[in-house]
């Protein structure tokens, strides 16, 4: 099965001008956050929501920074080494298959 992430671009995040620099997280940041992971995971399909989020990320320094971190973390998790099935399990499963 092909991995979904294979076709993902290096980054989805584009900087515009960072004019939105709230002292603290405000409502527009919280709204952006609500969509952020779906966006980074290629699960946000609503074009209006995508446009609104991209606009916010392009102008809000703190949200852009957070999104950058999460995008990097996504990349690191996809690349992380997973435990491979040990040979004992492989032969155990092979025995199971042979008995089918």
């Amino acid at each position: 099965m092909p991995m979904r992430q294979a076709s993902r671009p290096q980054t989805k995040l584009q900087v515009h001008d960072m004019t939105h620099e709230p002292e603290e997280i405000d409502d527009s940041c919280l709204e952006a956050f609500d969509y952020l992971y779906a966006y980074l995971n290629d699960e946000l399909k609503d074009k209006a929501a995508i446009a609104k989020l991209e606009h916010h990320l392009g102008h809000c320094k703190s949200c852009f920074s957070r999104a950058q971190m999460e995008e990097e973390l996504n990349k690191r998790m996809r690349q992380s080494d997973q435990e491979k099935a040990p040979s004992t399990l492989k032969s155990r499963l092979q025995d199971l298959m042979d008995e089918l």
Partner: protein
Amino acid sequence: MPLDSDLKRFFSENVEANMDSIYSLALRLTRNRADAEDLVAESVTKAWASIKKLDNPDRFRPWLFRIVHNTFISDYRKKSIRPAETAYDEAPCEGTEDVSAILVHQPNDFLNWWANPEKAFFNNLLGEEINAAIDRLPECFRVTVILINIEGLSYDEAAEVLDVSPGTIRSRMNRGRTLLQKELWHYANEAGLTTPDKAAGA
């Protein structure tokens, strides 16, 4: 209906193709190699017993993951929970705590620290440390993050595995990743990576 020999070949090939993934998931669930092997073997046996109930062959992967997860819940879960984290792991997954509350109360230093031009934090962060932070998440968030961000399942597929709605997956992803940020921040503090000199490798 395919012939039994075709079905057997289909099943064997797909189990083999997903063997590392289901073992990795089983290990993260049970936190014990012997139990993980038993869980995989038991799940594969159950999967073969119900292979004719698989409506869509293209959904074999989430279907097999679901059997592993359900078998874990029914036969292994109680054993896997460490006494010290019982309350943590049994925390309600769909609690009323708003993600925004976690974000707003995050240390103000967090983003400034992360956003330093050298990005020293990620340069110093090993894959095993990210894995350890994921393993410390409550179970429902841990499994959601693993299925989507490590195994590459879609939200729909993860919803099928965990028998919840895609909306619940989205909510768990938001909360799980926010908690993961907190775990990494905690780790970075403990490891001294938030001190500029150490973070830069001095």
